[in-house]
């Protein structure tokens, strides 16, 4: 089950610095822990978050085992033109989630 909460200002003026925050549901299992049966739980991490603004990469981050479950990530970008922000999370076990959010720039 993949779910995400994304906060992007709906509209901004050209040249504004806008804050973008993302929160995604993910167990971020380190691969070092044992389950109730004593067997090691397979690693399941989000490895990378990237954000493209109208096709151009504006932000990316790599995640590792020390990041808590349901990782929150906030960053800034400059509002240049109306369009879409495309968020991509990629991780172990073929995990991939893509969300798009529209932004209007005046």
């Amino acid at each position, binding site marked *: 089950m993949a779910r995400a*909460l994304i906060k992007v200002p709906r509209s901004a003026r050209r040249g504004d610095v806008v804050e973008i925050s993302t929160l995604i549901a993910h167990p971020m299992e380190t691969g070092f822990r044992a389950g109730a049966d004593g067997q090691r739980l397979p690693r399941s991490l989000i490895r990378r978050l990237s954000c493209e603004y109208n096709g151009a990469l504006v932000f990316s981050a790599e995640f590792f085992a020390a990041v808590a479950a349901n990782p929150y990530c906030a960053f800034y970008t400059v509002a240049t033109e109306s369009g879409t922000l495309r968020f991509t999370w990629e991780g172990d076990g073929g995990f991939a989630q893509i969300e798009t959010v529209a932004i209007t720039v005046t």
Partner: protein
Amino acid sequence: MSRWPRAASLALLVGALSLRHAVAAEPSADARRSGFAYMTPSTQAMQRDDTQNPGMLWVGDGEASWRRKAGKADQACADCHGAASASMRGVAARSPDFDLRLERPVDLAARINLCRERHQQAEPLPLESQELLNLEVFVAFQSRGMPIAPATDERLASFRERGKQLYRQRMGQLDLACTQCHDDSAGKRLGSSVIPQAHPTGYPIYRLEWQSLGSLQRRLRGCLTGIRAEPFAYGAPELVDLELYLKSRAAGLPLETPAVRP
């Protein structure tokens, strides 16, 4: 100071202090604090902002479950109850409620499962499962901001009394009762953590230690393990009785579901 001799101003000061003391000692002065008050500003900010609060992920899932048809009756919660924002408002604030058929109090999770069995003709969801927590937090979320208003049914009184006894009962190898930490030592520290007053204001909560959402029963079981007592099983009547008492103790405090706790 010339017009106010020192003795007179001192007397005034003492008078003011004793007045303040009198106000604090008055039973109407509410010294109760939600666990929220003991958290760091950053954790408080996490709870306040719905896009930072991970509990909102479960609320979103719960809304989807609310609309999903289930069971032999092929009915969704929404088919009977309609919009949760109207029909479920206040439900969590007065839970646990008295069930006429079982003739005992049931908490929100049990109520959802009873509804599944009786009306949707569906299998009850396993307690503390993701699916049940989704629905529970979605229903409780509809009461966010409302004061806790325990059900007034007289048949609940004996169960509430039993909960109160349990709260004061020494248990486990450490031989501790809830009241010894949460009344006598609230506000002090246990290791690095502040001991809260144990008001169930935000359940189900997103607990940072769990890295997940969990119910009040999970929290109570954690406390029982902490005092090295054998925890009551999920759904045990003792846990519901305890919740009944805790809710009456917290009556009037606003619900924060989904709360974030360290």
